């Protein structure tokens, strides 16, 4: 009897830690509430499909960025993953065409973003975007009102925005006027508004041009004159990501440039402390663009349960499920059918509704140079070099001219190394 109990106990322990045929493992990271929402949806799927056990591994974003690529290189990994570095890892995605019920449905509703996720020239169906993101600004309306400074118009330039935020900073005695996330992706929107183009004629990175140089110089000057929050960019080295959201949430800055994925985070943390709204992207001489991007749910080609993966992906990509996911997570949808219909975001917060509307509106003004970047293989080394070297200029370690030379060298070295 005792031996039987031990054997039963051991079996239970083994069962709980081993993946079997029929198991589908999903690696997922969350910016806001989407982890809970997806778990809820997957529970519903498992109830309707008792033969398929979906295991949701909620991990930190850093795990997806740093550990998943190594697992994939080793021919391992989860069956499905939610990733943002979609293009760099494109060789590892499974072609869902043979395992989904209706490939034409996928093509119609998600086809516009397939090139973001698959190798150049490929025609596979690799997955779908769980959300489309767009970079853009947020303004603390209450601080602007208290300072008596009018919020700049939709067509205001970067200079006009920073000048207005600077006036609020002086009036309200803030530590800084504004912040931009420490991210090459974020400043690329502004670079492109100043006329930058990263993609050369041969599809390799072009040397950084006058547009990038113009905005980089502005950034450095804004740090030097105390209007841009120095901490976000200077207090780290290399490509380390730092968000400026906390300073905005704490009412320490008047203007914050980040992106649509912050809406749920800001809503939950700001609450009724002050009024805020998204304002789209400021203008430069060439455009008033944000940078598109997003997180994709992709199937991994090393899965041993491709048929089950297809069923899970079919379920999650259904229009009603995508609509529910979008409305509950407060994301911008990628599904064409959902976009065409009415989206009833599940929030009473007027700041959120206005912000999401602003982002939806701004998504119609994306410059071609910005729209091309998510499907471009070499975006990441460009973003990384920009952040690393511009931060060094801000910290007083390099001059701008030296930084520009280094940026080109860094990008060239990385492309050469990756091409070996």
């Amino acid at each position, binding site marked *: 009897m005792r031996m039987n109990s031990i054997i039963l106990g051991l079996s239970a322990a083994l069962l709980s830690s081993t993946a079997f045929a029929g198991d589908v493992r999903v690696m997922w990271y969350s910016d806001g509430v989407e982890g809970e929402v997806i778990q809820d949806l997957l529970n519903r799927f498992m109830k309707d499909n008792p033969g398929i056990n979906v295991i949701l591994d909620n991990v930190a974003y850093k795990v997806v*960025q*740093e550990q998943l*690529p*190594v697992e994939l*290189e*080793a021919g391992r990994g989860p069956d499905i993953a939610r990733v943002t*570095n979609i293009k*760099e890892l494109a060789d590892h995605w499974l072609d869902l065409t043979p395992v989904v019920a209706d490939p034409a449905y996928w093509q119609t509703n998600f086809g516009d973003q397939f090139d973001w996720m698959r190798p150049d020239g490929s025609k596979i169906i690799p997955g779908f975007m769980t959300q489309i993101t767009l970079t853009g600004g947020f303004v603390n309306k209450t601080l602007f009102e208290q300072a008596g400074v009018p919020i700049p118009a939709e067509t205001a330039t970067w200079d006009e925005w920073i000048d207005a935020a600077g006036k609020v900073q002086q009036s309200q005695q803030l*530590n800084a006027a504004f912040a931009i996330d420490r991210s090459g992706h974020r400043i690329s929107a502004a670079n492109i508004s100043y006329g930058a183009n990263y993609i050369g004629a041969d599809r390799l990175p072009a040397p950084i041009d006058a547009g990038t140089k113009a905005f980089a110089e502005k950034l450095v000057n804004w740090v030097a004159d105390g209007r841009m929050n*120095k*901490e976000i960019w*200077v*207090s*780290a*080295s*290399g*490509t*380390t990501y*730092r968000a400026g959201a906390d300073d905005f949430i*704490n009412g320490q800055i008047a203007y914050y440039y980040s992106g649509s994925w912050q809406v749920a985070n800001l809503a939950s943390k700001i609450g009724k402390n002050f009024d805020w709204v998204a304002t789209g992207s400021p203008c430069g001489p060439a455009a008033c663009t944000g940078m598109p991007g997003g997180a994709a749910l992709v199937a991994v080609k090393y899965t041993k349960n491709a048929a089950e993966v297809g069923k899970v992906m079919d379920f999650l990509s259904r229009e009603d499920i995508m609509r529910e996911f979008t409305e509950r997570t407060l994301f911008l949808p990628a599904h064409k059918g959902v976009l065409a219909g009415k989206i009833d975001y599940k929030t009473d917060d007027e700041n959120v509704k206005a912000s999401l509307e602003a982002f939806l509106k701004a998504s119609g003004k994306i410059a071609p140079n910005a729209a091309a970047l998510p499907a471009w293989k070499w975006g*990441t*080394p460009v973003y*990384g070099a920009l952040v*690393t070297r511009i*931060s*060094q200029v*801000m*910290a*007083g*370690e*390099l001059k701008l001219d*030296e930084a520009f030379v*280094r940026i080109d*060298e860094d990008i060239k*070295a*990385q492309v050469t*190394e*990756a091409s*070996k």
Partner: protein
Amino acid sequence: MADVRNGIATRAGAMILAPVGWLANLFDSPLRMLQRRTGSNGMAVFFLAPNMLVFGIFVLFPLVINILYSMTGGGALFLGDRTFVGADQYGRLFSCSSYLDPKSCIEDLFWIAVWNTLAFVVLQVAMMVAVALVTALVLNRELRARSFWRAVFFFPVLLSPVVVGLIWRWILQRQGLLNLMVFEAGGTPVNWLVERNWAFTAAIMVSVWAHVGFYALILLAGLQAIPKDLYEAAEMDGTRPLRVFWRITLPLLAPNLLVVLVLTLIRAVQIFDEVYVLTGGGPGTSTLFLTQYIYEVGFASMLRNPGLASAASILMGAVLVVLTLIQLGIARRNEQRGKMR
């Protein structure tokens, strides 16, 4: 009552040791047979084999792989998929007009990290040894609640480096505890983690705070091994306390101090975790140390360069080997001195 207790303890001991005895009996005959066939040298090899196997798998094999990686290029993970580039990665690291000026190097961040690490090692080791010595001297005195104070100084050693980094980040950030105290005292808050010199100082202080308890413990053991009669004789001779320290304490503590010095040096060269959490290598690159450089090139960057990271780690490993040999030399010399006494 005591007999009963002893009886219970004996029975418990016998129960615990019974399986060991049973196993010993089980292996006795085969081991005797093996010894007859292989001799005592063969038995030594037999008993060392498991340890050597573990050492081979987890130390020697990765080391060889690392050396091979350092001679390859590309982003592929498997060695077979990588391009052989010979000493190109080392050439890239050493490609400088002047090693004193990182800006003149192709891999300027590597040389920035080298010089930062060197500065950190010199300053941190000096401070660590000094603070550990003072702490040990104080804890060696007849204090009230001496055990409590010893525990207090040792406690940070038990903390995870990530926890240490986070705690101090909360204290030192712009709106942290330290600035609150400065503000309350009427001072002007300082951006401790954004100003270059302050951030570097903070990295040293935090590292000393986190590890000083361990080194103080080694020195404390050394202090307690110094014969008391030497101090009594000095006291009877009316020797001044400072002279006692220089003439008795320091010379007799020298072996322990050397061990602490070398261990601190090795640890300082490897510095990464708590400083990475505390400053992220910033402001700019002022707290970018070698291990972080290797980590970022090899793992954190989206386009990883394992070859360059391996080459840098081999160079750092060479420095550590030299330091370890020094430590082994010191340990051996101490052992010989002990035998001579």
